[in-house]
């Protein structure tokens, strides 16, 4: 593999990783602070994409769409928290799984209802439409590069928010001891709604950015949700730092596996067999990674409690 191709594939891996981090950060925060498993998180990702596509079409501005996508997802998250999720905090995980699974079904069918069964198409903004030359003779789409930058900025912002602000302090307190936060006179209900909206907004932001790359459709959230689970299991459930490390690991492993394995197998088998076997093993690679992490460190790479 040439250096230019290696660099391009590495960037693809980082871009996938950044997107996964944005999706997984909310999931892990919500679990860390409220102890809730949220299967509707993929639906919030999808909400961001639909809102962005809709607003971009109506206003003609992708930037308004992007902001609107993140805000719409945050608003949907807050509404879900107030109406449904709030009743689930004290319940066992079984009830949480079922209720949020039901929410995921409701969201994706509602999206089909409102926007029709066919996918929506969203173009990246004109300013980011071309490709940027890479050292070594390659080129890389400007928009994907922008996703990497925006995602890293969001990660840095989230880190600063948790480390430096009053809300962040309460989040950290909530992660370590839920009862104590209430005892300290913090408005727990408000804190929970805010955390939920924050997580949803991050997912919606990721969904809006990815929508312009692929297509916006009702089932787009499901694969992201599953990958986000893998990410936080690898990184350590409840840990934002772990989610970042896990997302990068999963993004790069997945992309490199898809890029390298078929070529590797092509040395042993004919192209059609190699393509099939390569794709099969590549698609399992991140789950093998997860199993390996689990055997070595059952609580993930960065356990939240310890």
């Amino acid at each position, binding site marked *: *593999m*040439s250096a*230019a*191709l290696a660099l*391009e*594939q590495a960037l*693809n891996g980082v*871009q*996938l990783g950044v997107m996964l981090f944005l999706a997984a950060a909310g999931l892990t925060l919500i679990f860390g602070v409220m102890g809730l498993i949220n299967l509707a998180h993929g639906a919030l990702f999808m909400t961001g994409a639909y809102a962005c596509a809709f607003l971009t079409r109506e206003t003609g501005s992708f930037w308004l769409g992007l902001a609107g996508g993140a805000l719409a997802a945050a608003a949907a998250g807050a509404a879900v928290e107030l109406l449904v999720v709030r009743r689930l905090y004290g319940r066992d995980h079984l009830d949480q799984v079922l209720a949020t699974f039901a929410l995921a079904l409701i969201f994706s*069918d509602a999206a*089909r209802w409102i926007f029709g*069964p*066919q*996918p929506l*198409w969203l*173009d*990246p903004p004109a300013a980011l*439409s*071309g*490709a940027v030359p890479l050292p070594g003779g*390659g*080129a*890389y*789409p*400007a*928009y*994907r590069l922008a996703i990497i930058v925006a995602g890293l900025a969001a990660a840095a912002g989230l880190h600063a928010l948790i480390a430096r602000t009053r809300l962040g302090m309460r989040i950290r307190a909530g992660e370590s001891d839920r009862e104590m936060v209430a005892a300290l006179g913090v408005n727990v209900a408000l804190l929970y709604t805010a955390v939920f909206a924050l997580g949803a907004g991050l997912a919606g932001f990721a969904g809006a950015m990815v929508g312009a*790359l*692929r*297509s916006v*459709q*009702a*089932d787009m959230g499901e694969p992201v949700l599953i990958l986000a689970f893998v990410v936080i299991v690898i990184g350590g459930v409840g840990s934002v730092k772990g989610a970042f490390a896990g997302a990068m690991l999963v993004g790069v492993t997945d*992309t490199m596996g*898809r*890029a390298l394995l*078929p070529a590797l197998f092509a040395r042993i088998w004919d*192209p*059609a067999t190699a*393509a*099939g076997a390569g*794709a099969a093993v590549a*698609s399992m690679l991140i789950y093998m990674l997860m199993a390996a992490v689990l055997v070595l460190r059952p609580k993930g790479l960065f356990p939240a409690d310890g």
Partner: protein
Amino acid sequence: MKKRILGAALAAIVAAGGAAADPTRIGMITTLSGGGAHLGVDVRDGFQLALEQAGRKDVELIVRDDARKPDMAKSLADEMIQKDKVAILTGIIWSNLAMAVVPSAVRQGVFYISPNAGPSALAGRGCHRNYFNVAWQNDDLHAAMGAYMKAQGFKRPFILAPNYPAGTDALTGFKSTFGADVGGELYTKLGQTDYAAEIARIRASDADSVFFFLPGGMGIAFLKQYAGAGMTLPVFGPAFSFDEVILGAVGDAAIGARNTSQWAYDLDNAANRAFVEAFRKTHGRTPTLYASQGYDAARLILSALDAADPVKEPDAFREALRAARFESVRGKFRFGPNHHPIQDIYVREVVPGDGKPTNRLIGVAMRDRQDAYAAQCRM
């Protein structure tokens, strides 16, 4: 498993049977939701247009959405056969769904008229007297493009297709005429929407052109990302990668691409002119090849219904289908011994159009193309 989730009861009754004899029931299972929805929508709209034009009161059409899921298509077929007692099934877009539905359906005695999918297994050893394909065998358009690109002097095309029966048929078909020596070969996931890794590999290869078979939403995603990555290699494909809906979504990035099709909206014959005009009037858009296939499928069925009743006289009905006495919108049309068409394949080029790019007929890629599997078929 899920029998029917979305759009389940999308039952469109086109012509309610009068008090007279039992109407002939036709079941249409097609893809109306998800990334491949516009293919099914156009097949349905073309089919319904032909029924409306015929104005027959004795034909009842039941339309259901399979959401591109083989198991759902299979259970919808069983439901239509066992509960709704349909005589004829049609509508399936995707080869993997056809493989799940067709063999058991024709064994239960119904006729299956394929308006799109033509997997090699059903054209060769798995052919059946009650199975007819009005569109093409999966290899056809790809084989024609292989022949065309070879004639045009391309040496190292990079070829890619999704990993499913129609995808392997596509690349097999392409190589059957172009030769096995290509610049690179890739299978992608069906329904995949991010092609960054694949585009990087094309860029790193020494290919001089790209041939891709990515129908529906996959084609839109690929073409957008291909242009966004600053790729300039000329692109080729079957018409499935460049239908009017894909061109509308992709925009100018597709201009210059050439594709093979058994039909074009600017093909000059009376039936086609009438069809394109009527379709535009009814639906306000230019028909895709899928609409033409749905239209032809309905007209084939109607022509055979004029001759015989599929339930009471199945043998006579089958003979009438085989004779194909209808005016196809693609000009001349006849069935080979395996009930797949023998037809001309054309080349089209994507040119700037009215607001969005469109396809223009530029020549013939292959005359009287017959698929390579007909010899294996023993009916």
